[in-house]
């Protein structure tokens, strides 16, 4: 956010550069001379990490050594000093962090055969640039800065916490009825799904099962479907009672007769060891499929009419 603020005026920058040139030109160096001082970045502010590159022209080899300890002041913090040899001399790179506003000379740095001194740093301040005059007052501790989008997130959570119960209360009855209808439909269709699954398995096993086992499974599946779909009484109804139960369940005559005939045939296979062909089995499997699909469709249409 600080970087976004307007930078120093062009005049100020030019004046600072001129000053640097003048200072650099007048730096006294024994056997060597500081020919150039460049600050990176050129314009910097209090607290910025700045690198000052001091170019030293030397006639011969200098034995420059980076000091073990750097100068310690409360207005500038030296981070590092390094020496880079160039064709025409040396470049001393001083990385520091200023904590003052205005122009000050950096403390001298002893490099052994030479001491770098008189390097002036011009430190800018955003406060002064923003037009604030007078001594800067300490500001009270500011609130913690929120991450971008935090307020939006909080707002959404609040809306959810307040809004969802309101929506649930407002539309609860309708939703509950809808869920109940869906559940009831799911439950009603469960016997049919179980039947279909069983019939698929039976079709797979049609050649492996003997006639008796086949019809036991086929009729058990059908009975279970009727028991689950219409009335539990189908589970304990004999074939003779089946017709009565089907009539009670309101099954039309045609599917009723087909089912009863199927059960009569199945009883003969189950209890009288009547022989059956694969064609018989396939025919009866399809018969069960067709009749139950018809019953299911009829029930569905009745529900739809009632719902409408």
């Amino acid at each position: 956010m600080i970087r976004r603020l307007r930078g120093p005026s062009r005049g100020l920058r030019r004046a600072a550069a001129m000053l640097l040139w003048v200072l650099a030109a007048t730096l006294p160096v024994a056997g060597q001379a500081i020919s150039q001082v460049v600050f990176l970045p050129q314009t910097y502010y209090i607290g910025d990490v700045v690198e000052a590159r001091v170019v030293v022209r030397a006639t011969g080899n200098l034995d420059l050594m980076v000091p073990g300890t750097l100068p310690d002041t409360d207005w500038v913090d030296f981070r590092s000093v390094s020496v880079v040899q160039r064709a025409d001399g040396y470049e001393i790179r001083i990385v520091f962090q200023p904590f003052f506003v205005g122009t000050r000379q950096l403390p001298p740095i002893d490099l052994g055969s030479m001491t770098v001194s008189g390097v002036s740093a011009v430190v800018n301040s955003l406060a002064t640039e923003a037009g604030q005059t007078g001594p800067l007052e300490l500001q009270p501790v500011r609130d913690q800065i929120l991450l971008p989008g935090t307020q939006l997130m909080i707002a959404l959570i609040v809306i959810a916490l307040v809004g969802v119960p309101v929506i649930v209360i407002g539309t609860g009855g309708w939703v509950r009825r809808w869920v109940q209808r869906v559940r009831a439909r799911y439950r009603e269709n469960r016997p049919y799904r179980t039947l279909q699954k069983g019939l698929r398995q039976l079709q797979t096993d049609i050649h492996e099962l003997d006639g008796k086992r086949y019809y036991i499974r086929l009729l058990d599946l059908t009975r279970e479907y009727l028991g689950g779909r219409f009335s539990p009484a189908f589970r304990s109804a004999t074939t003779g009672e089946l017709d009565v139960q089907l009539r009670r369940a309101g099954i039309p005559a045609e599917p009723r007769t087909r089912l009863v005939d199927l059960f009569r045939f199945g009883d003969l296979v189950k209890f009288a060891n009547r022989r059956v062909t694969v064609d018989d089995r396939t025919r009866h499997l399809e018969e069960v499929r067709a009749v139950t699909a018809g019953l299911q469709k009829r029930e569905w249409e009745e529900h739809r009419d009632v719902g409408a």
Partner: protein
Amino acid sequence: MELQEQNTSLDVQVQRAQDLIGKARHELARRIVGQQQMVDGLLTGILAGGHVLLEGVPGLAKTLTVKSLAEVLDASFRRIQFTPDLLPADLIGTMIYRQQTGEFVPRKGPIFSNVILADEINRAPAKVQSALLEAMEERQVTIGDTTYPLSEPFFVLATQNPIEQEGTYPLPEAQLDRFMLKLFVDYPTRDEEREILRRVGVPQDIEIQRTIFKTDIRKLRDIVGQISVDERIADYMVNLVTATRDDGERGDMGPLRYIEFGASPRASIYLYRCAKVRAVFEGRSYVMPEDVKAVAPDVLRHRIILSFEADSEDLAADDVIDMLLSTVPVP
């Protein structure tokens, strides 16, 4: 192929048996109006080799039916009126001292007949009842030191009156269990009663012919024995009987809560035999669930003891059996 031929042969035999039974029914129907369930129950008892307990109010042709059945069967018939002063010796016989020879000789009682009608069995004391019931079970009696086998077929039909219970000796459950079937004899319908008036309004002797001979009974029993019962049907019978027993889940909402004591395995055996007879009645060589359901009330009603809950809800044994039949899945 062999099995198929056997089945065909059995089917023919069953067909003949059905015809013969049909003739017997026809003959009985000449004298007995309605009461088809009682007649079928009695025939079931004879063919399944069990004894029958008839319960019904007086005047419902119980005695007449049994007497007529004995005539149709070509069997010796004796009626024993059970009274409080009856002694076991009056029933099974005793040793008589013969003066001429100076020795004791056995005098066989009325139990040595093919068809016994023990009328109002609950009016005789327990000693007489147990003598009869022992004979029913053992099919032999001991007079003095000698044991005499009872004649075949040996068929006891006992009657009891559901009213006038004062001064009676109700049969204990253990003895009731020895009866294969307990038949309820109900009042005739209006049409049947009108027909009764038409037939016997003027006293007349209606002759009926003997249609089933002793050899026929043996053959019929053999045919009944050959009737096939699928394993699933047998399981169904066992399921029905075991459903009457306490399995520790008395708290459920099923019919079990109405039963204090359930049926014994003897019920399963009799259910098995009677279902076979019912299949022959229907002209089938195999048993179907319908047969089991048809005979189950007669086999089970005297074998279950109802709980207080059933009493409080005014439920009869037949109501509970109906519940059982409608809850146990059929094969």
